[in-house]
């Protein structure tokens, strides 16, 4: 059975995960946010809501930049992972 959820799909990808985190959020802004555009916009499901707070993971990031663009409040500090780290496409 092929994976349907994003989490299971990401598991087939090849990553070199950096210890340095390349996503940050501005919690003061995010806690007041009513839109949470980042959640549906992220194709790697990096952002999640739990009890009114936004949480994020960076390990599965596909480095597309969607979160940075949809956030109207500039609350996401998204940079590229350090050179050589992050997603490493074998097909592309």
């Amino acid at each position, binding site marked *: 059975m092929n994976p349907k959820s994003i989490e299971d799909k990401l598991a087939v*990808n090849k990553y*070199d995960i950096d210890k340095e985190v390349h996503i940050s959020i501005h919690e003061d802004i995010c806690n007041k946010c009513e839109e949470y*555009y980042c959640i549906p916009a992220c194709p790697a499901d990096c952002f999640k809501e739990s009890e009114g707070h936004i949480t994020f993971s960076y390990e599965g990031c596909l480095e597309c930049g969607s979160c940075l663009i949809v956030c109207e409040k500039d609350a996401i500090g998204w940079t590229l992972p350090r050179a050589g780290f992050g997603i490493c*496409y074998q097909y592309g």
Partner: protein
Amino acid sequence: MKQKFDAIVVGAGPAGSACGYSLAKSGLATLVVERGKFPGAKNMWGGVFYGPSLNQLFPGFWEEAPVERYILRHKFSLLAPESSFSTEFTTKKFGEPPYNGFSLLRSKFDRWFASKAEQAGAIIASGLQADDLLWDGKRVVGIKAGGDELPASVVIACDGVNSVLAEKAGLRGKFSPGDMKQGIKEIIQLPRDLIEQRFNLAGEEGVAWEFIGTFTRGIPGGAFIYTNKETLSVGIVVQLSELAEKKISANDLLEEFKQHPAVANLLADGKLAEYSAHLIPVGGKAMMPGLYKDGFLVAGDAAALILATGLAMEGANFAIASGLAAARTVIKAKKSGDFSEKSLSCYPELLGQSFVLKDLEAFKKAPHFLENPRVYSLYPQLACDLAERIFTNDGKARKKTWELLKQSMKDRVSFLQMIRDLIQIKRSI
């Protein structure tokens, strides 16, 4: 003293490798920096490449480049929830050199292209990220990368859709989510003979199949299936702003598409090998950043050089053509020893002489038309509904097609609205 390069190209994708190849071939000391472990490691796309730009550079490139299949057939389907309406075009010509297009995978292809630049004399530095620009007043004089300062007469930013350097150079501001489409793709492994049976292919023949329909839930965009040698590229491309506003994940739409009765059998028993995502700048001419300043040029996706006409999206050949135009600009500047903004201002002129800006100008109204939600939901349903009425034999007397069309349109859309949309289509594409 550190070596000063004539040119530093940032990003070893199609724009960067074309530019680096051309500069090195003309004898310029050229460095290409690439943040991935190897060229292509960070790159994905839908998967059909149109060849003329590359064929000019490397005649008969398909003999040595890692292409998957030549595209013999183009299919287009409109999907309603349980039905589909398809058209197909093929011509013998597309199966003969120089071919029209190829399916190919970027991880292999970009590595090959960068190796051509390397053979021409460019230095390819993979695993090196351009963190910032080096400035002398208002002039760009190199890059900062990996803690080092690397000086150069000119920097060419081929660093992709999210170009950090174009932003640092002050040539673009923040993007609008309405100007972006999000593409997600699965690579699905299937035995070669099964792919050929299911898609009616022989040997190296391939198909490019595009879909629009109700599976995007009215969000502008569509889906695709492209055949590779032993894999399928299956993906969806949808408007980023609407995903955010409607709170829909592109992956949910992709799953819905994959389960459609017209699609599911084609993919059955395939094994997922990769899941990837990327943004596509689809705002056309209106979203193009500034293309140059003192000691600095922008090419490829970084310059938003993508053509989206509705049925197809093209970027890689625009990237190559713009990388080559940037190289010509730099070679000219090197001869006069002048890398000022004024000297580099011939770059947009060179782009204007090629198909790059001509195509973008011709289709500048397409982005607006492509936002029309009726195109993605109502018309596919209408086509399927009408076809169903025509083909269904319910044992009663037949009605004329015109009557059936009126029935299909009832409560959905007026003739006036359809005529308005047709006029819009005529004006934009």
